[in-house]
């Protein structure tokens, strides 16, 4: 039957794109794969692709290993800088954000450059809110506000920050952007929460984009092209969305006074 044949041709062509990406060692997109049976086929193909490789071709890229190792080292340093030895628990910690968990998460979110400074801020936070949750967020984003010991730094004038705009700033402890999201001014870390690369502002798309693996964060600091965007039909013309979920960008407190924008940066 011609109709069935055409359907099979179309499916074979679409699924062929998954295979081409997989075998070309690109990142295959679920968009090329129908759910159900084809997902099962995609999985079989992935195992075949891995199993038919020489052992040497199954090894991680040394540059990748080094990059991730640097993140581990920074985590060690930042957590060491807290001055609190990791607690030895007999039982798993209770659900919810314990103090230790909170500080670790914040250390992680700070990314490479800012880890030590943020650790200092997080320690202060733990003291003022033992076992508590992050500061409530007045502007509605889910990203936790970074507070703790620190000081206000002027980073921009409002005149330079039109609606939909973003400006880079750097302080001793923090690399970030101040953004004007429809009249709301916000400060966001410029460090991707995936591997610690520095984000770039894309004016046309109105997002912060990672040059390393293509994560896009919206102006509230949330991953905008994660798996949810994927399930909802893609993201701003990207061929494929970012396949994993990432933590929100760290978000220092910000204030606007007399047309000047100030950001709260942690004490180093």
């Amino acid at each position, binding site marked *: 039957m011609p109709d069935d044949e055409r359907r099979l041709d179309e499916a074979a062509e679409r699924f062929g794109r998954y295979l081409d990406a997989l075998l070309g060692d690109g990142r*295959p997109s679920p968009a090329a794969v129908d759910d159900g049976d084809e997902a099962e086929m995609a999985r079989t*193909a992935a195992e*075949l692709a891995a199993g038919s490789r020489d052992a040497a071709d199954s090894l991680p890229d040394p540059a990748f290993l080094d990059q991730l190792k640097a993140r581990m080292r920074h985590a060690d340093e930042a957590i060491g800088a807290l001055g609190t030895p990791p607690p030895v628990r007999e039982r798993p910690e209770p659900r919810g954000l314990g103090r230790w*968990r909170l500080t*670790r998460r914040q250390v992680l979110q700070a990314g490479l450059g800012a880890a030590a400074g943020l650790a200092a801020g997080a320690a202060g936070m733990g003291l003022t809110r033992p076992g508590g949750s992050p500061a409530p967020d007045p502007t509605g984003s889910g990203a936790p506000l970074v507070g703790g010991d620190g000081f206000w730094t002027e980073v921009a004038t409002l005149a330079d920050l039109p609606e939909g705009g973003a400006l880079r700033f750097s302080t001793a402890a923090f690399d970030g952007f101040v953004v004007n999201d429809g009249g709301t001014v916000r400060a966001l870390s410029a460090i991707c929460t995936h591997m610690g690369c520095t984000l770039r502002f894309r004016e046309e798309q109105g997002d912060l984009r990672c040059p390393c693996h293509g994560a896009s964060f919206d102006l509230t600091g949330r991953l905008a092209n994660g798996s949810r965007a*994927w399930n909802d039909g893609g993201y701003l013309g990207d061929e494929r969305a970012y396949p994993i979920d990432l933590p929100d960008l760290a978000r220092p407190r910000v204030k606007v006074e007399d047309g000047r924008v100030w950001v709260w940066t942690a004490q180093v």
Partner: protein
Amino acid sequence: MAQPPGPFERVYDAHAVGIYRFIYARVGNHPDAEDLTARVFLRAVEQLDTGRPPAQIAAWLYRVAQNAIADHWRAFYRLPLVGADHVGPGWEPVAPGDRPPTDEPDRAADRVRRLLGRLPPTYRRVLELRFLERRSVAETARAMGISDGNARVLQYRALRRAALVGEANDA
């Protein structure tokens, strides 16, 4: 002079390559394997108690890796993601007697041979050309004396069969 490695770096040094290979064997491409490996170790920074005995740390890491792989495939099945925070990782090995899979690549190669051996000759041939020899669709078509379109349909049918055979193998 380099600092002596801290607890997370030591965990990483001991397990990074093993976790990577474990993941790579199940997702079949390096970009996704890098993402998921990073996810496992970044989650360790958030949640792993490095004071645990080594065997428990290994079990924890492989369990988190399994969850990450499961989430990866859930996107292909259009299923809601479980999400890292919703899965209790636990300290026990993932299955009784399960050990960190050091012999992973050999076992994967065996599985490929077994699976291909159970397919009809044309299906086996197209998958050998595409996967083992890494030929393009056009090269595969030429080698088999068929059109590109037919080669695409053939690899599609072959994988559909292979998925069924694989399921029977798992059971």
